[in-house]
């Protein structure tokens, strides 16, 4: 096999080399040399981006499986597999990122036998561990299909609905709990972001980002893998996204009013700029775009809205974990190059694994027409049989 030298492959290799270099620094010299973290600022982008955003960006998995298997929206089935793949890769990479951030990564298994149920981190650890297992099982049917292992395949398909239900519960718990993590810091986190509703905000925004990521990832896939765009599905996802954004917007506004922060969000300052950047990207811009019917129905409009929502809520997570803590800590945290390079390498590996999976595994339905027809034909069959059919 001959490997062609393309621009993106060169970029990929450079990112991997820098990431490997960063990894060497991290594991030979410690966190102090590999990060700009300090006693005043113990959590940086490996927590704020790699973990908080990583888990959020993988939320499409539980959103889509809930919609397709629980709410029985079969029209959306064609995009379940790539979404589950994204989620599975996302969670695996979050765990990889944790191995960099934990000071004693070889003790990562400790929560299994040393339990403190009062700790949000303990709960998140269990949920992430169990949900990654659920995703692995959901994903395993694709691999089993590929290798035609009928017996375990039948077993997984039979257990699919309970698996999906468990996955949705676990996701609801830990997506919201990543917000709960910050409830213990009422004196540290800036009042723009500290709210008793943090868990609710984290959960709702995870759903919004899950939908947006699905739109984003389908749009990219259709270009990269030269597939026909699943436009009718994306239009529906866009409408649901629009509603979720409204719910989030109203709650967020109500919360700011209740906590008496309405005046301070108009007083210029460091936090104020980042607050408005987040609100503009995550809410105002995409909500205006999605409110226009022609934009909401066009591939480009949907894509742009989805990208804005994703960027906006990434800003939100970074605001909660970094911007909002800076004034308490009394210093300005700028990540070191190693923090960037390792993060970039993890993302790059994620993209590469996605590409490999699409190449070697039955991720996408073979033909769009077939997929749609199958949806109608199998409408009568029990869900588990349907699941088996529609991915083919």
């Amino acid at each position: 096999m001959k490997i062609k030298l393309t621009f993106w492959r060169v970029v990929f290799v450079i990112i991997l080399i820098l990431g490997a270099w960063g990894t060497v620094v991290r594991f030979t010299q410690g966190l102090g040399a590999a990060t700009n973290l300090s006693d005043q600022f113990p959590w940086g982008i490996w927590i704020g981006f790699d973990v908080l955003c990583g888990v959020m960006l993988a939320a499409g998995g539980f959103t889509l499986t809930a919609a397709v298997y629980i709410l029985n929206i079969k029209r959306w089935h064609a995009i379940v597999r790539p979404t589950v793949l994204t989620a599975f890769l996302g969670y695996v990479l979050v765990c990889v990122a944790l191995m960099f951030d934990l000071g004693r990564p070889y003790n990562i298994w400790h929560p299994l036998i040393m339990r403190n149920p009062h700790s949000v981190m303990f709960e998140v650890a269990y949920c992430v561990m169990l949900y990654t297992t659920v995703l692995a099982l959901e994903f395993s049917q694709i691999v089993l299909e590929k290798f035609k292992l009928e017996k375990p395949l039948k077993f997984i398909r039979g257990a699919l609905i309970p698996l999906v239900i468990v996955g949705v519960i676990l996701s609801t718990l830990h997506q919201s709990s990543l917000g709960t993590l910050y409830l213990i810091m009422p004196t540290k986190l800036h009042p723009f972001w500290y709210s008793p509703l943090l868990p609710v905000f984290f959960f709702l925004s995870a759903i919004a980002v899950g939908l947006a990521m699905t739109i984003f990832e389908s749009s990219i896939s259709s270009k990269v893998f030269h597939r026909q765009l699943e436009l009718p599905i994306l239009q529906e996802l866009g409408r649901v996204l629009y509603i979720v954004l409204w719910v989030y917007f109203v709650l967020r506004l109500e919360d700011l009013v209740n906590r008496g922060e309405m005046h301070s969000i108009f007083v210029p300052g460091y936090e104020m700029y980042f607050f408005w950047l987040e609100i503009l990207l995550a809410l105002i811009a995409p909500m205006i775009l999605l409110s226009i019917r022609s934009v909401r129905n066009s591939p480009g409009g949907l894509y742009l809205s989805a990208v804005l929502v994703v960027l906006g809520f990434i800003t939100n997570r970074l605001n909660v974990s970094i911007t909002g803590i800076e004034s308490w800590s009394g210093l300005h945290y700028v990540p070191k190059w190693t923090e960037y390079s390792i993060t970039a390498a993890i993302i790059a590996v994620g993209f590469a694994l996605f590409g490999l999976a699409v190449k070697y595994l039955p991720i996408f339905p073979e033909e769009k027409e077939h997929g749609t027809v199958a949806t109608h034909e199998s409408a009568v069959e029990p869900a588990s049989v349907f699941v088996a059919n529609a991915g083919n």
Partner: protein
Amino acid sequence: MSKAILYDATLCIDCKQCEAACAKQNNLPYDDKIAAEEVQSAHKFTVVLNKNDKYMRRLCMHCDEPACVSVCPVGALQKTALGPVTYDAHKCMGCRYCMAACPFGQPKYEWGSLNPKIQKCIMCPDRVAAGLPTACAEACPTGATKFGDRDALIQEARDRIRQNPNNYLPHIYGVEEVGGTSTLLLSSAAFEQFGLPSPKSLPSDPLPMYTYRVLSRIPDFVPLGGIFLGGVWWITHRREEVAAAESAETEEKHNGGAR
């Protein structure tokens, strides 16, 4: 009975004997260079700060309901019945949530180590258990740092303020802050200028309450969520079966009006 450390800044002479005794007790290096360091760190659990000849000692507050203990996923940090908040490095996985959660910024980290530990004042738990005062209290030549029963020390602090109201701020730092602490501070100068959170900014609720309110709902949420999702699944699929059966019937009758 719960023990406590009372530090009275008006009696302090900035001799740093407490720093030296603390270092010795915890097998940490201590020399003139370290004595000059005006920050707490992984190798300096306590520090005497000097702002315009007003002194303040910083050390772990040993909260009655510590945020660090509640957030530690593996229970490496523990609040002992006598008062000290202790740390077991063998359990720790280095997530640093304790550092992020502590309202006083007390847990410090060995950033340069490949096997890093959390470091902070642990209130000499072995000495305390043996009925001895902490090393710092024993070393203090003026009685500025005093070790004893918490209730008795609070009473004594109140008496000191009452007898010399002009010498003190009318506040014992640690009686109510975040639900009470086992380190109590008296001062004539504002606590904030020594990096302590202002007493007004700290809630009198213990911080673990803030997360517990949410976490305590999980045991109910899991079964209810399961039943709810299972119910929705049943309804959506049942509806579909019924619709399918109906349309099959309709077809059999060759009759379009049945729907």
